[in-house]
């Protein structure tokens, strides 16, 4: 293994913003997961009565939207754009960045938006093509452009699309850009809106979704013996990360340190992860090495924990491989048990939960964890939050296509709510 470069910039988190099925704003989202509150219920966004899966975790429609420059206003026509705008505005307001121009970049995790199914059917029959503005706002890069315009960011701008790993990697890539000196601050995060007929159909056909139509509130049960799939969710999470020297110079309130990023690829199968947890372990080991930490330093793991039979056992095997005996001691939970799976947004939203866990000394639970699967021999946090100091937290994200991302969030001395 290589040694991490000894000399580099430290990167801290000075702003966070989120919209999840628990609500609009970080406070609502954090309160929801700490209280172990369910958000999963019948789909209201369309008539799902005859669909194979009829429940999801829908994000609330924001009541007010920030003003955005006219050239990107069309992106707000989609819920995805609205969630991105609101979460980004919250993070920017918290960070209070000065104008940084080309020294401020944006790196987001996002996937392409889907057309409305009825419109698609009509267009396919008539041969009519979507307009340029519609295409533009459906692009994965649309939220990136939106947020860059809102913030006046003129620095490096990019969009990661690696399915469920997208926003974990976007945070990590932002970290690398600041360390590298390409930018002094980065807006990082992700957004996804998945509760639409096409996605419900696609994931149902794959057999990836829970089928508990009769009892949606218990459907997402990561690491439980009786889990049967994940639940589609929606949301956005953004973080403002910046060079420590800049943050100190301008007197910013530091929430936590972004101290490590690890990334690996399963190189296995498109939708499956290796049962031995190899890829997950490699990602966690790389993140620990990058942060200069050992397993003994980790006090909390926010697992990818999708609630699929395959992911959870593979991830648990990976945690055991990466952390050894420490795996049985580190409190571990999956907030997807409450928020559903936010796919391209999950890595960033769960990184925010880790920021708050280090700040507040409280770790969210895994809801619905009634009978832990023996194949997942971890120290779970079942059904009720756990209080205790969190020096460093790991957060995992693993995606179709095989990409794995792990972030290390470290407590900042003096950070408080």
């Amino acid at each position: 293994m290589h040694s991490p470069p000894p000399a580099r910039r430290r990167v801290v988190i000075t702003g966070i913003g989120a919209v999840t099925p628990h609500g609009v704003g970080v406070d609502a989202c954090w309160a929801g997961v700490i209280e172990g509150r369910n958000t999963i219920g019948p789909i209201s966004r369309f008539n799902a009565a005859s669909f194979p899966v009829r429940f999801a975790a829908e994000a609330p429609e924001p009541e007010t939207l920030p003003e955005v420059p006219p050239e990107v206003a069309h992106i707000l026509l989609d819920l995805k754009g609205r969630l991105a705008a609101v979460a980004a505005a919250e993070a920017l307001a918290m960070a209070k960045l000065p104008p940084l121009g080309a020294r401020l970049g944006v790196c987001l995790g996002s996937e392409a938006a889907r057309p409305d199914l009825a419109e698609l059917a009509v267009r396919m029959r008539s041969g009519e093509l979507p307009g340029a503005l519609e295409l533009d706002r459906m692009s994965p890069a649309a939220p990136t452009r939106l947020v860059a315009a809102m913030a006046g960011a003129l620095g490096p701008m990019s969009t990661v699309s690696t399915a469920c790993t997208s926003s974990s990697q976007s945070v990590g890539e932002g970290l690398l850009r600041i360390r590298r000196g390409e930018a002094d601050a980065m807006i990082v995060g992700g957004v996804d809106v998945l509760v639409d007929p096409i996605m419900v159909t696609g994931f149902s056909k794959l057999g990836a979704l829970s089928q508990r139509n009769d009892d949606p509130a218990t459907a997402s049960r990561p690491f439980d013996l009786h889990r049967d799939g994940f639940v589609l969710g929606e949301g956005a999470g953004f973080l403002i990360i910046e060079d420590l020297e800049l943050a100190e110079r301008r007197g910013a309130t530091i929430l936590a340190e972004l101290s490590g990023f690890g990334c690996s690829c399963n190189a296995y199968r498109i939708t499956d992860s290796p049962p031995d947890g190899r890829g997950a372990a490699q990602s966690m080991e790389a993140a620990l090495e990058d942060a200069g930490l050992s397993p003994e330093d980790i006090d909390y793991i926010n697992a990818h924990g999708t609630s699929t039979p395959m992911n959870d056992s593979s991830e648990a095997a990976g945690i055991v491989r990466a952390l050894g005996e420490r795996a049985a001691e580190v409190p571990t939970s999956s907030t997807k048990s409450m928020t559903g799976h936010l796919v391209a947004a999950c890595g960033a939203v769960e990184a925010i939960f880790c920021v708050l866990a280090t700040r507040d000394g409280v770790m969210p639970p895994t809801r619905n964890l009634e009978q832990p699967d023996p194949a997942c021999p971890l120290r779970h946090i079942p059904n009720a939050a756990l209080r205790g100091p969190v020096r460093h937290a790991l957060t995992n994200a693993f995606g179709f296509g095989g990409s794995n991302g792990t972030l290390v969030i470290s407590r900042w001395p003096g950070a408080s709510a």
Partner: protein
Amino acid sequence: MSSPVVGPQTLRPVTLSAVSLFCPAGIGPEGARGGAPGPVPGFQPVKWIPDRKGLKLMSRAVQLGVAAVRQAIALDGTLDELPPLRRALFVGASPQTGDPEDLRPALDKALGPAGFDLDKFAREGIDLIHPLWLVKGLSNNVLGFASAAHDLQGTNANWCDGEDGGWTAILEGWDAVAEGRADLAVAGGADALIGAEGLLGGVACGEGAAFLVWRVARPGERVDPRPHKGQLPPDGSDLGRLGAATWPVRYARAVLGGGLR
């Protein structure tokens, strides 16, 4: 606290060891000069992609990308000397939302004189959709299939930023090797826009893929600085819109055409 700041980061020497090219002018060095918008002449996916089962799940852009990764790795010839975790892959790609044509039978079932009936789509249409339809539409399929084919277990990313995605991938590949996160990085992009002319305002479109292999320079090997767009000579040919393959193809043509190295 972790990651102390003690000074500027040390970078390792990086060399460009191989370049693959599939573009409307041809495959390999043949594709380095001339050309016009259109398909990659003579590209037969089955000749390049032994994974027959996987091939059925690959769009044209993914087929081009997987083939180009294979060619780049073969030309480099050193992959087997490295542990899988030290092999990186960075890809620029266009979003693949799934081929709408694959949904046509299901949509037709639900579209009647009164309009689209979502309930009928769910009751009678969904069964007509292939179970792996969603997988075929993943934006990161070049990364997924190529990493599995060559056991590339290291750091990676898939960039969807229109034409800039492939350029970002090239830079990330170089950075990953220079910064010590990988010993070899395959980096480039792939796209296939033929048929999308109407969506793109009538401009001529093409298809292509190109991947570079960056690796740690060995003693005596040429050291390549971090790429920048300004170093690329003008490409006198119009190959049409190449989307995420634009910059990788330009870079590969510049190298193979003798204008860059």
